[in-house]
């Protein structure tokens, strides 16, 4: 079906229009704003700024580097743990046992829950007055009044666990889907050859899952980098900016200080960083190189 026709263009036309208006044009204007002094609260100073915003960001703004470092830590820890737990979970619910359908539906269900709702649920669970730690302390475990979200020493762990609750099912679903596409005779052949269970996992399962793992970790890394809902509502970037990611910093520049020029420069930097790492990753995985 390699006919030259207008049909494919007609079919993608609505998508093109939407992407042009809501993706391409905004990117263009972010780049434009990033070269401007553009602050809604100080309009008399607005004007062309050249690379001033970028200079300030690179040399004069410790919070930029701090938020970038936290973003990196957040993405690596979250995606790594989600992949590990998701893989284990997928392997478990791929086995045969009574109630498997029910178990799958239950363990996957947090995937459908929003970041804000996740925050709501975990605030109920973690708050010092009526949360789970209060309950445990009544049973003699731990001390009453433990506030894991307000304590700088535990806030990162609390945040990580909360996002794991919602994030692990994503990997489990994708990897389970891929596990089910492994031809069964591969395992039988391996069994006949006397391969142990672990050996079958490393030489049949893992190589087959490789592509799915590469794609899902990349997608997830981008999403976790850009994840604002949960951190914004759970810690607001605090205490003392300790959990501020780059996108959260941008959102605060836009919403709180109305410094659109500087916020746009931060956006451009974040986009370039993400694009650089993604291209490197895609190259490594040879994704999209269909014949």
């Amino acid at each position, binding site marked *: *079906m*390699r006919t030259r026709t207008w*049909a*494919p263009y007609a*079919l*993608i036309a609505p*998508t093109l229009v*939407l*992407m042009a208006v*809501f993706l391409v*044009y*905004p*990117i263009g*204007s*972010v780049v434009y704003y990033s070269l401007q002094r553009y602050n809604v609260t100080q309009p008399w100073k607005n004007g062309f700024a050249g690379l001033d915003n970028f200079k300030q960001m690179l040399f004069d703004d410790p919070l930029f580097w701090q938020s970038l470092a936290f973003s990196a830590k957040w993405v690596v820890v979250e995606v790594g743990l989600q992949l590990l737990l998701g893989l284990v*979970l997928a392997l*478990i619910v791929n086995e045969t*046992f009574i109630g498997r*359908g029910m178990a799958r539906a*239950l*363990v996957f*269900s947090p995937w*459908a*829950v*929003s*970041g*804000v*709702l996740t925050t*709501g649920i975990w*605030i*109920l*669970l973690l708050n010092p007055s*009526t949360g789970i730690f209060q309950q445990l302390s009544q049973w003699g475990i731990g001390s009453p009044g433990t506030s894991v*979200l307000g304590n700088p020493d535990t806030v990162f762990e609390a945040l990580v666990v909360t996002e794991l*609750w919602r994030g692990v099912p994503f990997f489990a679903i*994708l990897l389970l*889907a*891929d596990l*089910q596409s492994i031809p*069964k005779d591969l*395992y*039988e052949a391996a069994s006949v050859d006397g391969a142990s269970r672990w050996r079958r996992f490393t030489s049949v399962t893992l190589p087959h899952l490789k*592509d*799915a793992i590469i794609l899902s970790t990349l*997608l997830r890394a*981008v999403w976790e*980098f*850009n994840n*604002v*809902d949960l951190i914004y*509502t759970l810690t607001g970037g605090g205490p003392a900016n300790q959990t501020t990611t780059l*996108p959260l910093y941008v959102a605060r520049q*836009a*919403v709180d200080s109305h410094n659109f020029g500087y916020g746009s420069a931060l*956006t451009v930097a*974040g986009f370039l960083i*993400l694009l650089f790492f993604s291209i490197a990753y895609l190259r490594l995985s040879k*994704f*999209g190189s*269909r014949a």
Partner: protein
Amino acid sequence: MTETLTRPPVDATPPPRQPTKRRRRAVAEEPGKRWMIHVPLVLYLLFTLIPFYWMIVFAVRPTGSTQLVPWPITFEHFDTVWNDIGFGIFFYNSVVMGLGVLVFVTILSVMGGYALARFRFRGQRVFLLAMLCSQFIPGAMMLIPLFVIFKGLGLLNSITGLIIAEVAFQLPLSLILMSGFIRNISVELEEAAMVDGCSRLRAFFAVVLPQLKPALVAVGSFAFIGAWNQFLFALMFATRQDKFTLPVGLSFTLGEFNTDFGALAAGGVVAAVPVVLVFAVVQRFLVQGLSAGAVKG
């Protein structure tokens, strides 16, 4: 693909007493190892379910009570959030938005996915690349220009505006997924129908669409859940309370220290029940749909 649909019932009733030729047999042969499945599964189930249970308990027990198994239960918190805080309106807005996004994302991704899977056209690679790149654009970072665009188009405080923006952001990934699904449907049947005199459109509806059902369910439910959960755009572009969606309404009941926990929990239940139900119904199709090869693009 219809075969994958009928597979679970077959699975559920294996021929009695016959050793099935599956690798699962390995587990059945080693009953002593079953704890390796059950122990981690139960632990993970607890991790998943305790937070849900905690929310439900808070939602149905009177303020000040600390019972872990609340009885008698009360619906006062639901009455408060639904009528006083306005979750009734938020719920309606979320339903409209979720269904709107579902319909448009599904239709547009089938159209575009079909174009990518069944045609070779100039600019195809650029189009595909642009859609992949769009996945790297942080929604949070687009707030500033989008706000300006929305204002210019008069789309602030409008559910229609939210639907359009959400469709634009969801479409690239859905479209790529859908083209993977369509590529997996053999082209021969379709060609045969066209040789027999069907138009391409009729061939699509008669041959392709029936086989796309699991894909439609997967993409459609993705779209609905994504729209239902959309927070940042809804927060930025709706300033009037009668245009709030559930996540925005919920975010105003949050706060670690001075929160009405009963109202927060009841609001959470209202926000959770529809998506969790939708998800429970479709998760089987989701796994099947994805395993049909979409992941491999």
